[in-house]
């Protein structure tokens, strides 16, 4: 149980740079904020919605934001370039980015991607991983945060955030797409929270309190009544309709993104990071040649220090 | 007269926008082969008169026919030497002279011959390769003239072509002009400030008065062509020049110059 702050003690300020505009993927934050969990933990948390120009890692690295949301793969690559940032908690146990496939497409497995065109962010490391692991060649066309190209082409394959894009596709008159998940290929990227090393050094107590409140927020959002978060999300981004938010939340639950898909999954895993998985990820990225060999160890990349004991 | 006039003004009035009257009910008929000199005070409408004939500016009222058509429709071939030298700055002298013929599709060899002849005439045969900005003022005017002559036009409009030239070049060109006229039967309108030049060249002199522009008097010049240096020494010539000068002076006195200040 969090220690109640003394009434006279000022709240510690923490600024969070989100990776995208406010959506249910940030449900943990908004529920914790709306229910006052952060405040209870003695924190005054500001949530900065993102977008394609959020520049989460540079913001955190330079201290413009104290905490940021990112995916662990990109975070590792940037840490490999020396950005003074450390990953300290999980948002999702597996990154929900995957490949969306039309319901009636003949593509069923990763091997079927051979020779195809995939609409995706060119910087997405998973693509390289697939090419190497399955000896595939395919063509990449940039994804511009839009499902138009997917909708307009019956044979399109597109990178998508599984908890959001399918909803828009269905809304626009498409069929619910299928999904090739990164984890099925053995590419286990987290969605994570990062902070800069200086902040981690100087504010361990606040970070610990922060993670606890955040985990509590997620749990409350997923297990309890999501209404407070949804009201706040709608306020931050009027594009969040109730249907959309319920859809996203359902996907989070169904795919056990927050609590973990593995056998050990469950509420106790919320926010947890596994150094062993990091070791695997680092060696995978080294094998792909996009992370320089022996530049980074799991201990440099992440810490479990701030996770609830 | 049996031959219809090639240029006919019938009560032609001209004003620019809502400005003052520039030409006031002007009537005039030029027969084919006429060499009309136009003299008159600065700003009386001489250039405007030529521009109307060329169809560069519409008449405000009245009727103006060229070759029995409106100036815009007239098929008569015109050449105009503007008061200010109007050369294409990106072409050399030779190219400037040849251009109009090139547009007509004259073959290169023929063009070159005509061009050479015209430049010889204005004594600029050696400057064919120069660009306009390398020429003196008088040289530019001479190029303009060469260009006009090389067109063998039916109607030649000359707006003070020799104003920027020294007397001798001027006389030389006057004589050349008349020599060409013996072969090509163009009709010429020739604006000048020199009464003697007007008398030497033309068979009719229009003396204009200003504000508004009107034809005050027409002087018939009955000196026989071809005219030579001897003409300049003749009694008749001198009398005409004297009469012209007197007329011009009287015209300027009646023209209310700068009266609306």
């Amino acid at each position: 149980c969090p220690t109640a702050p003394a009434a006279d003690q000022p709240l510690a300020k923490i600024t969070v740079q989100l990776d995208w505009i406010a959506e249910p993927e940030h449900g943990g934050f908004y529920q914790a904020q709306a229910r006052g969990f952060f405040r209870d933990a003695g924190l005054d948390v500001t949530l900065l919605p993102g977008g394609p120009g959020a520049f989460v890692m540079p913001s955190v690295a330079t201290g413009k934001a104290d905490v940021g949301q990112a995916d662990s793969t990109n975070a590792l690559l940037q840490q490999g370039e020396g950005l003074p940032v450390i990953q300290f908690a999980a948002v999702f146990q597996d990154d929900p980015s995957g490949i969306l496939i039309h319901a009636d497409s003949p593509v069923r497995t990763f091997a079927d991607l051979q020779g195809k065109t995939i609409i995706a962010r060119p910087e997405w490391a998973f693509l390289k991983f697939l090419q190497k692991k399955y000896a595939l060649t395919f063509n990449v066309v940039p994804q511009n945060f839009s499902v138009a190209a997917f909708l307009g082409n019956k044979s399109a394959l597109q990178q998508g955030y599984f908890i959001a894009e399918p909803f828009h596709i269905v809304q626009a008159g498409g069929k619910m797409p299928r999904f090739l998940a990164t984890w099925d290929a053995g590419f286990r990227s987290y969605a994570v929270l990062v902070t800069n090393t200086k902040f981690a050094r100087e504010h361990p107590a606040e970070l610990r309190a922060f993670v606890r409140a955040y985990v509590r927020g997620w749990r409350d959002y997923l297990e309890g009544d999501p209404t407070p978060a949804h009201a706040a999300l709608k306020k931050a981004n009027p594009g969040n309709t109730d249907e959309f938010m319920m859809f996203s939340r359902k996907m989070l639950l169904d795919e056990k993104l927050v609590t973990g898909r593995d056998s050990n999954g469950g509420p106790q895993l919320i926010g947890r990071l596994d150094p062993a998985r990091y070791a695997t990820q680092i060696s995978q990225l080294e094998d792909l040649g996009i992370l320089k060999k022996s530049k980074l160890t799991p201990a440099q990349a992440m810490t479990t220090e701030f996770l609830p004991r | 007269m049996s031959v219809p006039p090639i240029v006919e003004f019938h009560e032609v009035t001209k004003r620019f926008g809502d400005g003052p009257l520039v030409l006031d009910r002007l009537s005039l008929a030029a027969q084919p082969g006429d060499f009309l000199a136009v003299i008159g005070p600065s700003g009386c409408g001489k250039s405007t008169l030529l521009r109307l004939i060329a169809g560069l500016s519409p008449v405000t009222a009245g009727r103006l026919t060229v070759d029995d058509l409106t100036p815009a429709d007239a098929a008569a071939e015109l050449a105009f030497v503007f008061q200010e030298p109007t050369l294409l700055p990106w072409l050399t002298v030779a190219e400037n002279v040849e251009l109009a013929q090139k547009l007509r599709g004259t073959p290169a060899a023929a063009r070159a011959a005509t061009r050479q002849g015209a430049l010889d005439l204005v004594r600029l045969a050696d400057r064919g390769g120069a660009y306009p900005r390398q020429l003196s003022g008088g040289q530019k005017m001479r190029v303009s003239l060469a260009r006009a002559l090389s067109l063998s036009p039916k109607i030649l409009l000359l707006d003070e072509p020799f104003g920027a030239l020294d007397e001798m070049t001027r006389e030389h060109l006057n004589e050349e002009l008349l020599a060409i006229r013996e072969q090509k039967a163009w009709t010429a309108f020739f604006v000048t400030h020199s009464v003697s030049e007007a008398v030497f060249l033309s068979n009719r002199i229009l003396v204009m008065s200003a504000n508004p522009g009107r034809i005050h008097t027409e002087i018939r010049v009955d000196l026989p062509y071809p005219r030579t240096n001897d003409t300049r020494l003749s009694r008749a010539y001198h009398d005409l020049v004297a009469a012209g000068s007197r007329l011009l002076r009287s015209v300027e006195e009646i023209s209310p110059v700068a009266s609306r200040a």
Partner: protein
Amino acid sequence: MSRKFLNVLLPAATGALVIALWYGVHFWLAAEMRFLLPTPDAILAALRDNGDALWRAALNTTAGALLGFLLAVVVSIALGLGLSLSSLVRASLYPYLMILQMTPIIVIAPILVLWVGPGLRSVTVITFLICFFPLVVNTTQGLISTDRHLVELFRMWRATRGQQLLHLRVPAALPYFFTGLRIAATLAPIGALVGDYTAGSSAGDGGGLGFSALIYSSQAKYPALFATAAVTCLLGFIFTAAVLALSWLALHKWHDSYERADK
């Protein structure tokens, strides 16, 4: 048919043609592709439905566009004056201006966002970066294209450099300058939009048109996306109309581009 009548009719006819063509293309498209090019009426409906949100976004973007545009004008005039001094100065500075123009926004954006902060300030700078180059190039070319006879006149009067600029080079450069201004007026709203979605912030006021475009696009709300584009265009038209009016005031009395046959 009177000229005045034509002056209204022809643009209207072209407009009608464009709209007809638009519908034509829409229905010519395979049914499942049609959503990509919503019909004008759908766009109008979206404009109405999202009126409030678009209005707020447009205000944000207008602020960025206007500030960036004005900054570009001021800086371009200053730079143009400097560059017009001599071909030496041009050779020395021009490459760096080009670099400024050619550096991709995605390279600059993080620096900008971290330095000047996201939102209006970054949007203004990005708009500036997108607008200023055509203006500088046109202004400079205008300033160095002055008729040499007039330059000589001023030299003889021993006019100071400043006088020569003010009374000669600047007025003579106006036709070029306004050409650049017309380009910049068109680039300003789109620049602000690009700025908004690379360095904007949805914090506080909910972002500008760039953010709206991004969100509508990601949510596959095409009519609303096109409505956003329409608002951007409208903004550009307003800018351009202002520039054209200024240009007319400055030039119609004397410049050949406004010359009409006399009547």
